[in-house]
């Protein structure tokens, strides 16, 4: 792929060599060749995107209007949507998922930012604290969730959490056995597992805030809180709003937590999530088309959310 050997490739030769080709054509050739090299470098990734991202997107929409039975595919219009919306778990799944998302936003969004701001002030033990907070991110979720399921959320007093609560003189909980605690328990596990990444990203953003800004704010008499609201947050706003977005998209995909902690649906459907319902329909009810329809519904909901979110964000500027 050594382009320099091709005649007319470099305009830099113009000074010594008598240019036999007219320079405009040379430039055009050069641009064409650059384009070709560019596509050659891109092709591998583009093929993978085409097969495993772009095509499935279209396929997902198409198959949501089809029904495949005994190898025969027919168009069925909105039938799949009809069936999936009338699934008795449909609205529960949405409620649970939204509840999880909101709870995770309260816990999993504010806490990492607060921790990052705090950690950024420390001049000691920085490395140690960072390693600790990132450690759970490295665990396979299945491992971490079995830890929570068998050892932490044990509904008897033998469980880790209940023995801590008892030790502190607080009422114990039935955790996954209680319909009220199912979601908070999943949020706790999920936040513990995932928070480290966000903290590290915020830390990186915080380190890029020029020190002079704080200096100037302090000279203007801004206290700690004012410096956070007037310097720290505006300076990290871009990354903050991006992370909020990413987190909502991530938490809406709640799946492995209910699957492992609650054996899927949990007591009285208290753990059923939208993705779990997709999984149920696709792989247990032999209804890949209905599952695809639910996927499309979820996609539309998330795109709607993104549009509103982007709108609100733009208005703030």
């Amino acid at each position, binding site marked *: 792929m050594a382009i320099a050997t091709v005649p007319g490739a470099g305009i830099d030769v113009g000074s010594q060599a008598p240019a036999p080709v007219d320079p405009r054509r040379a430039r055009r050739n050069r641009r064409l060749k650059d384009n070709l090299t560019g596509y050659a470098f891109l092709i591998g990734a583009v093929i993978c995107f085409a097969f495993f991202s772009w095509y499935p997107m279209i396929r997902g929409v198409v198959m949501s209007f089809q029904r495949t039975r005994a190898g025969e595919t027919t168009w069925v219009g909105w039938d799949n949507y009809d069936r999936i919306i009338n699934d008795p778990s449909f609205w529960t799944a949405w409620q649970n998922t939204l509840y999880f998302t909101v709870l995770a936003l309260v816990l999993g969004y504010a806490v990492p930012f607060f921790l990052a701001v705090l950690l950024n002030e420390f001049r000691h033990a920085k490395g140690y604290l960072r390693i600790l907070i990132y450690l759970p991110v490295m665990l396979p*979720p299945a491992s971490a969730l079995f830890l929570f399921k068998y050892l932490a959320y044990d509904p008897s007093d033998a469980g880790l959490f209940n023995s801590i609560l008892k030790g502190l003189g607080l009422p114990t909980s039935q955790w996954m056995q209680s319909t009220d605690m199912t979601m908070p328990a999943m949020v706790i596990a999920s936040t513990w597992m995932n928070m480290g990444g966000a903290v590290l990203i915020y830390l990186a953003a915080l380190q890029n805030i020029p020190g002079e800004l704080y200096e100037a704010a302090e000279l203007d008499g801004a206290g700690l809180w004012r410096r956070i609201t007037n310097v720290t947050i505006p300076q990290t706003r871009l990354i903050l709003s991006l992370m909020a977005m990413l987190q909502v998209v991530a938490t809406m995909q709640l799946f492995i937590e209910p699957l492992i902690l609650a054996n899927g649906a949990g007591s009285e459907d208290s753990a059923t999530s939208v993705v779990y319902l997709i999984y149920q329909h696709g792989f247990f009810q032999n209804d890949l088309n209905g599952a695809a329809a639910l996927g499309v519904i979820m996609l539309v909901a998330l795109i709607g959310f993104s549009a509103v979110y982007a709108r609100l964000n733009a208005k703030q500027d």
Partner: protein
Amino acid sequence: MAQQSETRSLVSFAQLQRGRGKVIYWTLLTVVVILFTLVFIGPLYWMITGALKSSPELAQTPPTLWPADPQPENYSDAWNRLDLAKLLFNTFYYAVGALAFQLVLDTAAAYALSKLRPKLGNLILGMMLATLMIPAMVLIIPQYVTVIDLPILHISLIDSPFSIWLPAVANAFNIFLLKRFFDSIPEDLMSAARMDGAGSMRTLWSIVLPISRPILGVVSIFAVTAVWKDFLWPKLVMPSPETRTISVGIYAFSGGTPQNVVVAAAVIAAIPTIVFFLIFQRSIMSGLTAGGLKE
């Protein structure tokens, strides 16, 4: 590890070295260090020792801090019963393959998008970034249907490692990270290389890649951990007991296996990632902070 030379943050360093500031600083630091240790190491300790307890001891109230009668055979039990050696090897194989595919194809793509800028480059980049807005789980059904019967080629990738390796390449986040890093490489450097007669490949290999080591480290770590941690996708496309990943294997066995053995297996599954992390933590941290997400 005190670094006085660094730029100041929210509170100036001088303020933390005197009087009240100093007291607050050290109290806060101590509390945070203790809390973090309890919150993040505590559960791991509980897991490792929990797996050493006998079943009756595991159900005992109040729980014992240290197993009264440690039973290391829980670990060997888990190892043999779940065939963990096989599961670990599978997962490792998929992770390394995914890493190789991503490093080659995603780096090449990011380089093309950043430096070669073919005509449709921005459109392609836009289409790639658009996939970031599509949650992976939404696509799982059509992706599965695609992998069962690949369009045009009409082959099934079920139980083939390619069903993990190739979708891993379609990772817009990695391409975005790489492209952004490549964008920060000065154009002068690129045109200097061109003047010297270096072709695109040569420039990528001897100029771009050496500079990009930190971001390549970050992408590699993401690539490996993503495969190691993934659950639903490998569960669907690697259904046979011979091809399962470790997480899926543990889940599949969890139903009929005693709790302490399952936890022992979960500990064993976590060891490689923890070791991997402790070895590479410097590049993970510095990669994320130095170049990864600079504004």
